[in-house]
């Protein structure tokens, strides 16, 4: 896989990267990781340029470490070794145990539609790990002086704070049939994850049959945790309409789906 050379963070105002006393209102960065690109948008009140750069580097490092640990493509990742039985759960990194616990929870609330234990090739938490990793990386940006930040990893994103004082994060949901169009805008205080098969970065499997399956053109889940939202969006895309029932029952989570015929359905919480 080709890997994009990491770009230096971009700053929106007062650009003088060599002068650490200059303060910036916004910083951006795009990092190639986990087979996609993680976009950073950081909104700053009062923090030095070098501190932002180091926070971004720290977050990127966290993403790459998660990738190294959980990649099912890399034969030496901890997950691959666990799958082959070369290490036991007791020897596995604590991060893997944490992800396993989250997977159990996601399997339970999705009534089995998210089930990493029923994937071909053994335990495969990919549908949750990206969200988990991005959420963890965002934690590295929670610093005094940073009033809000978003990391968007290939279409699954999580935010904290505000983009600008008094404003909420506004997230466009992509049209499944047109990469330049959005279907709607959703305001969020935390996580938004979307699943579908119209891009090449996602393969959806039905845990019951083990075969490729996608009942919806696009399934978006909004909620407090990106790890859960990521897993539940995957589950919902595979489950289709019936999945809206268990999703609507979850406290704090809402869904917006676009069916294969183009029609749209939302959980009632999004319409109020």
């Amino acid at each position, binding site marked *: 896989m*080709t*890997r*994009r050379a990491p770009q230096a963070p*971009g700053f*929106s105002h007062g650009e003088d990267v060599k002068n650490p006393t200059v303060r910036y209102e916004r910083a*951006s960065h*795009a990092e*190639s990781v986990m087979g*996609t*690109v993680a*976009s950073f948008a950081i909104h700053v009140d009062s923090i030095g340029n070098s501190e932002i750069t180091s926070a971004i580097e720290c977050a990127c490092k966290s993403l790459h470490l998660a990738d190294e640990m959980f990649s099912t493509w890399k034969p030496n990742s901890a997950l691959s070794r666990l799958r082959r039985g070369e290490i036991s759960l007791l020897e596995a990194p604590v991060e893997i145990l944490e992800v396993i616990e989250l997977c159990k929870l996601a399997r339970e609330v999705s009534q089995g539609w998210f089930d990493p234990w029923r994937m071909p090739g053994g335990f495969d938490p990919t549908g949750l790990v*990206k969200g988990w990793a991005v959420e963890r990386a965002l934690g590295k940006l929670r610093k005094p002086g940073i009033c809000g930040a978003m990391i*968007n990893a*290939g*279409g*699954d*994103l999580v*935010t904290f704070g505000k983009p600008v004082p008094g404003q909420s994060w*506004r*997230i*466009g949901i*992509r*049209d*499944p049939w047109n*990469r*330049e*169009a*959005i*279907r*709607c*805008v*959703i*305001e*969020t*205080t*935390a996580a*938004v*994850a*979307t*699943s*579908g*098969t*119209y*891009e*090449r*970065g*996602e393969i959806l499997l039905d845990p019951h049959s083990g075969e490729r399956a996608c009942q919806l053109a696009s399934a978006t889940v*909004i909620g407090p945790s990106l790890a859960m939202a990521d897993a539940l969006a995957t589950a919902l895309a595979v489950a289709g309409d019936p999945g*809206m029932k268990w999703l609507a029952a979850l406290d704090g989570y*809402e869904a917006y789906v676009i069916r*294969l*015929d*183009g*029609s*749209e359905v*939302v959980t009632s*919480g*999004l*319409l*109020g």
Partner: protein
Amino acid sequence: MRRIYIAVASTVAGLAGVIGLHSPPSSSLLPARAADGSAGPAKARSPAQGSSRPGSAPPLGGSRSPAHTALSGSAQGALERYGYGQLAVKVTVAGSRIISVSVPQIQVADSYSGSIASQVIPMLRSEVLSAQSARINGVSGATYTSEAYDMSLQSALDKLHFK
């Protein structure tokens, strides 16, 4: 289930406000549309029936061509004939809300779905890609590969941020 369908109805109504606000009326294009037999409520059917919609989506960058501008005019005409109201959905619950919704595909004849999708593009470009009024902060969608990132709306937003 009933509750959900009611929700969809208001979602669709919300769209008309969006399109109505952002696209200039272009009634001059309507006769051509009607003449080819593809327009009109009587012919409306689910896009799922014999639709090749994914293939009919305009190519990347197509929104800048005059042809698509024309198409969006005819789509607006179709919307008027379906009688959607000018109502914007704007509600708040638990920190998440839908502000506006676009493209009522289910109500539209096959031949219109592509053109309505393309109509959203100029709206998006003007809203998102103008530095002063970037009204969305991010775009959520199915995971793109690192190779496809350059074509994504998020990358356009990132470029805007880098400026």
